């Protein structure tokens, strides 16, 4: 990750695409969300979406997977002081998670993240919170995922409080 100070509001990153297979959808849902419309393709035809659909948590966890993969794909260069920029920190939670269109077997979802806000932390002067608008869009241009993510990012210089 860049240091907190170096993160720019409005910076957008395409995280790549993922195609959901019926087997993937069923495997995730069998463990974590075994509602019949996520695990049984036949029964799902008579369900609320008319077909097998991915758990919203599966759609969302896949965003995280691609987010981490994109970070690993671009090693941060040493900064001007010769220091290695920090690893990503934990998250205090998220806001406004929406699954407006379900993910169906065979759908290919394109994921992205865009920085929308930076917040100082009074309780932790060495860290700041970065908020991002995260999305997933299917091959027809329909949004399947939208949420505001939050992550703690280290500051290069602790904030005076």
């Amino acid at each position, binding site marked *: 990750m860049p240091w907190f100070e170096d993160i720019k509001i409005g910076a957008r990153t395409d995280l790549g695409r993922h195609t959901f297979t019926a087997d993937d959808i069923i495997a995730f849902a069998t463990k*974590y*969300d075994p509602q019949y419309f996520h695990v049984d393709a036949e029964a799902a035809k008579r369900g*609320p979406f008319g077909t097998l659909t991915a758990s919203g948590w599966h759609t969302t966890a896949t965003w995280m997977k691609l987010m981490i993969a994109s970070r690993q794909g671009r090693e941060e260069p040493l900064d001007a002081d010769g220091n290695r920029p920090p690893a990503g920190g934990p998250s205090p939670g998220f806001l406004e998670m929406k699954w407006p269109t*379900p993910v169906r077997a065979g759908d290919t979802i394109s994921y992205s993240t865009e920085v929308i806000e930076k917040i100082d932390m009074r309780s932790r002067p060495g860290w700041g919170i970065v908020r991002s608008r995260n999305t997933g869009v299917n091959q027809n241009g329909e949004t399947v995922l939208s949420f505001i993510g939050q992550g703690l990012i280290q500051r290069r210089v602790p904030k005076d409080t």
Partner: protein
Amino acid sequence: MTTPKLYWEDFPVGETVEFGSKHVTKEEILEFARAFDPQPFHLDEEAAKQSILGGLCASGWHSCAMLMRMMFDGYIHEAASLGAPGVDEVRWKKPVYVDDTLRARRTCLESRASKSRPEMGLTKFRTEMLNQKDEVVMTMEGWAMYGRRHPGARTET
């Protein structure tokens, strides 16, 4: 798909219900993290000890997935569930560590009939996940959709 026992009418506003018991193993934490969230504090005990989280702990997304499973086993499996449009807010308040035992507590905050779909009602829950020390490790607030026992019945608000 079995015949549901719980419909939208069965979630009265103000009711609080506890459910679930989930022992979290190291293997599960590692399996989820490898698949979806391979950060050092979810994968590597030494790195996790050095991190702000203080020890190997579950991905927050894994916590969401574990709570979802507790919700399914606790009541959704016998409810006329129609899915959820999303989640208003989740707070990850404390790490979920190896060997924690989790349980959940839901409170129904709001309830309304769907205007466009007379066979459906919406219910807003606040759900807390607690560990064996009675610490709230996560809270989740959001709406879920359920079939109505009496579709289209007129509701007074």
